[in-house]
């Protein structure tokens, strides 16, 4: 029988296509899972990270594919805009994996600083130094900013705080 727990287990395997070390649950985009236990029909509600994030369509398709292949008879993926996703919804495990992958994770609710136009204090994911500087608020994808470490001199991506 298809249960909600089973669906959550399967969602563990659906990765963010742009950052393939974290899955959709760790990214915090899964807003709800409903299963009709009789028919096995599953409805997964997800929320976009960034408005124009091209990865959302891919994530929706990947969720459908994963569940259908695992034998869920009918799958619907809904997109919901509200309440708006924030980087605080990335789980602790997700943040740890981002860091291991070389992306500085977002600081908790640092958006206050960002909204005031100040740079957050960001730790270099390579050497741990806090002596870092932002090179550009726009990085390789819509969700990342480009930073540089003044100690180990390596550039790195930072997951922008929203």
């Amino acid at each position, binding site marked *: 029988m298809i249960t909600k727990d089973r669906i959550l287990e399967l969602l563990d395997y659906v990765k963010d296509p742009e950052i393939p070390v974290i899955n959709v649950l760790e990214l915090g985009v899964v807003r709800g899972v409903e299963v009709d236990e009789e028919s096995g029909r599953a409805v997964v509600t997800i929320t976009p990270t960034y*408005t124009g994030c*091209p990865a959302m369509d891919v994530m929706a398709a990947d969720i459908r594919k994963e569940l259908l292949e695992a034998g869920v008879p009918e799958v619907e993926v809904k997109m919901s*805009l509200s309440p708006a996703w924030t980087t605080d919804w990335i789980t602790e495990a997700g943040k740890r994996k981002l860091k291991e992958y070389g992306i500085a994770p977002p600081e908790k609710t640092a958006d206050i600083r960002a909204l005031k136009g100040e740079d957050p204090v960001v730790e270099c994911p390579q050497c741990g130094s806090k002596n870092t500087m932002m090179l550009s*608020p726009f990085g390789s994808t819509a969700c990342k900013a480009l930073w540089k470490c003044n100690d180990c001199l390596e550039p790195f991506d930072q997951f922008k705080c929203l």
Partner: protein
Amino acid sequence: MELNEALFQFCLRRGDDTHVLSHRLGEWCGHGPVLEEDMALTNRALDLLGQARNYLQYAGQVEGKGRSEDDLAYLRNERGYVNCKLVEQPNGDYAHTIAKCFLFDAWHLPFLKAQLDSKDEQLAAIAGKAVKEATYHLRHSSEWMVRFGDGTEESHQRAQQALHDLWTFTGELFETDEVYTTLQQAGIVPDLGPIKEAFDRTVNEVLAEATLKRPEDEFMASGGRKGQHTEHLGHMLGEMQFLQRAHPGAQW
């Protein structure tokens, strides 16, 4: 005017504003003055495109005639587009592009902040996402205005020229008409008074820091909301809509 018709028109306006500016910024892809700026402008273009999709999807839903976001984006002609004239202006040099963004952002951010309180849940939700992006946008364009204005003699002169050329298009951002007042009475769109104050504050502060002069309010261009555009929009749409016109219904 009927509320539903007004809501449809408003969604088209916001969709067209964001879509047209997105396309203009996308024209810089591969041509940016430095790599970081190339990425910054394409990132901004992507944010705006996402916002445009939200507005146009919603417009199609409100209209209820089965038109999709793509139908609305690719199958309306120039006279059917209702964006403000500011966003359709050609990119020009980098100072022109940045000044256009700056003037747009200085209006867009306070507008979105006010739209958060819209009685229309979907418009409030769209603003909830977009307001964070617009915060980054305004910061980016403000920093460049200061860098150009307070930079070399050449960069200062070009930034001043850009402001001079584009200022005439800022009046339209604060115009109201029957569509707007109908929605405002229903609590769906915000009072433009406080938004104009926020715009003035941002413009004055940033231009002061940039040592640039705020242009005088003289003749203000109008008509974009009625589908009357400068000659530039038609050329832009010709390129943007080519594929759907030449191969109707084409998909990825």
